[in-house]
């Protein structure tokens, strides 16, 4: 099972980088804050990790199949 993903909207600064990098996994809501389209996006773990690392505000969290938080720093 691949990573599951979540976005902390209180932390998101609406850079839009995740949406530009992975439009099948993220979208902007009506307030232009990021949100996952699906908690388990159809993307390789490495891609999700790169997207999470590229988030300027550190708003994207990943959890692996054992339920452990993935270090994205």
């Amino acid at each position: 099972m691949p990573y599951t993903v979540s976005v902390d909207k209180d932390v998101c600064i609406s850079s839009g980088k995740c949406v530009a990098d992975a439009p099948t996994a993220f979208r902007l809501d009506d307030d232009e804050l990021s949100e996952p389209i699906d908690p388990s996006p159809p993307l390789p773990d490495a891609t999700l990790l790169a997207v999470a690392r590229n988030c300027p505000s550190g708003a994207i969290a990943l959890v692996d199949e054992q339920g452990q938080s993935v270090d994205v720093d």
Partner: protein
Amino acid sequence: MSAPTLDVVTIVSFAEARDAYRQKDLRQALYDEGEVIMADVLVNLHGDEHRRRRRVENRSFRRETFDLYERHLFPAAIEQTLAPYIAAGKVDLVHLGHELMLNLAALTAGVDRPQGTAEETSRLYDYTMLFIEGATLAHSTKDKDEQRKCILEGLVQWDQEFLQPSISRRRQALASAAAGEIPDSEVPKDVLTTLLRYEDELELPHEVIRREIAFVLLAGAHTSATAFVRAIDHILSWVDAHPEDAHKVLEDPLFVQRCIHETVRLNPSSPVGQRWALSDVTLKSGVRIPKGHKLVIDLAAVNRDPEVFGPTAADFDPYRELPQGVGPFGLSFGGGMHVCIGQDLAAGVVPSGDVDTDKHLFGLVTSAVQRMFNEGVRRNPEQPPQWDANTARPYWGTYPVLLGASA
């Protein structure tokens, strides 16, 4: 002369710098001496105030907007700006870089030039150069109090001549769109328009809008202009040593983009990042920054960290291989919440996997630099480049070049 402060922690490793940029209790400190321009500007804000403004301004920095600039607006600006210099067969790269990038920065910021004359652009250029002095006051070698006075006077004059008419036009456009008289797509996408569109939410006094737009103007023009000059310098030296790559510079924009990234890595716009510790902060490495201390991130060293960039880290090498998760430009664009908002606009999107060159964003510096090589740019043997003596930052003060076919 002020006494050296002992309450400074300096870091030189890439891993520590990346960690530091993500710490939420480290506040921007780089612009403390440049308040005349930088007070309450986005890059100087912290916490909720920063998040609120950044969320609004990011709406002007979407990739579809960058696409519009890179593929449609900027090629015309390059043509128009370069034409007289191509005809003359020579130019000073330092002046050209700022003139070229100012044309784009004005679009991004939302500063109009309704007359469209060379004199009008020249006045805006002079104001922008003054604002650049304000943002880089920390590294100035001139009388800083005198500079502050001149910068404030210039700011007020620029406000009357350029900013207020630009605000009036945008208020009119927003009102027309709200009344259904024009489609919203006809309203400009620049930062000034976005600030006005959300002014009820942000509640910014006019003085703050004035400094914010001045900052967008100076930052867009100056950082890209210095990268433009330095990239041409590096590429000229690279091609001298590797003539087999000369054709790539002319034909392969991905190679040129790689050269731009390597240039930016070796030459961050500011040689240091600085932060104030709002509480005791301990980095993953164990380095501790006590509350009230200043953190200095030595970017020149960080971007030459051999642990990350290898034993040749100090050399310019567009073929350098990088570890996963490391940007090819190092940390020159900063990181964390204050990462440069115009990074993708200036340097393009970092290529990964197969690149569709019809859709890829190469960055405006890439486009401008490659165009210079297609115009035959080469050093002028009779006028060697000189460093800028007015700042401790390693800027070129003058860089004369020749254009056109060599004799």
